[in-house]
């Protein structure tokens, strides 16, 4: 099925959980990432249970610093 991950169309296997997506997409520093699905940040405890669906919009967000907020 197709998802939008960080703004890019991505094809993944059906039934993948957020935890599995973190592994599949080889996300950087997975222990530091916050995952937003369709505009809602998931609690870490929800990563294992949340099954992704067709057309979900997934954002991997980090807030360890970096990025300009004044432009």
């Amino acid at each position, binding site marked *: 099925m197709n998802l939008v991950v960080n703004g890019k169309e991505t094809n993944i296997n059906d039934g993948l959980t957020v935890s599995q997506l973190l592994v599949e997409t080889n996300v950087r520093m997975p222990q530091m990432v916050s995952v937003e699905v369709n505009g809602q940040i998931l609690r870490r405890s929800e990563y294992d249970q949340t099954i992704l669906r067709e057309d979900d919009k997934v954002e991997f967000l980090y807030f360890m610093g*970096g990025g300009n907020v004044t432009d």
Partner: protein
Amino acid sequence: MKTDTLAIHGGFAGDDMSGATAVPIYQTVSYAHKTAQELAAVFEGGMPGYIYTRIANPTTTVLEARLAELEDGIACIATSSGMAAVASAVMGLVRAGDQIVAATGIFGGTVSLFENTLGRFGVKTTFVDAADAKNFKNAINARTKLVFVETIGNPRMDVPDIPAIAEIAHGANVPLVVDNTVTTPILFRPGRFGADIVVHSTSKFINGHGTAIGGAIIDTGNYDWRKGVFDDIREVSSRAGQLAFLFYLRNLIYRDLGGCPAPMNSFLMLQGLETLPGRMLKHCENAGRLAEFLQAHPKVSWVNYPGLEGSPFRARVDKLFGGLAGGLLTFGLGDKQKVFKFIDSLRLARNLANLGDAKTLVIHPGSTIFHEFSPDQQRAMGLTEDLVRVSVGIEDFEDLKADFEQAIQKSF
């Protein structure tokens, strides 16, 4: 995971490199990157990575993750003190000309920050009696940017109706900021009752041993920054989504004010969190028993503990805090002279300006932590000259009772 497990394991599954079970202390100022291009990408926010400990640190990251999980929030920023948490959170929300609506009788340091420091920059604060939620509604105007309350005010020991106040704040599309220091997420998770931002002084019950100063800001995820009244944070939300507020703080206000925790202190807070659930239950048990003992004592003029039968706040303690009223109480001994003699006569309880320690602590707030406020202000904060504040520790109750009994006898 349930609360007791999160307090021990939240945010940390062991150290892959060494197998260490305690969270490693990353006592470092900065973080080297392999290439100039990589560091540039981290600065631009295009790649995750640590830059500088004033902005983020791996030990502190674990503390932040654990606190966010315990508060059921979306993320957390840990700070160098509770005041740094309040200052960073509130300065992220207000500009000159804006208004804060806050509960009367909140911590004196917060009152001073709002009135004196932020007052110098053109921010006005209106203080209202938190016992009746309607007072907040009446005080909110077009310039209001936030509502601020504590879960249990001290020394008033009042418990605001947080769900009703949250509804009022949301009616005006402004966030409710709740200081959860004295209840901790063990007794109360403000986000579940409508609060938008939770702040803590982690120096108190979370640290639990009087060994480190710290604070924290947690976004509960309730306030929609994409539709909020804060233009600059709304703009950030296009890149940071629901994390917009904390992202904005991390990359501007918190970064610029420099109120980051020392890595060693983050470690001490993590140690404290591990035993917080057990300690909070014992604090509450001892405080309830001490309140009942003092209430029955013929030489004690009055006792104020929101868990006592007959307290006007007992119903809210049951509804919001699951019947656990915390470790703080106040009582009166008639006049200041007797209070001083009582404090001087205590053998176990320590006379100092802190709360939430495993040890029982007492203070005469009128002549110490509130000394800079006028008699009128002190009255509004619920202070009388005969008031003693007790932060009830987790010692054996019979030893505490004996210490209080002998000191009361000597004070008359």
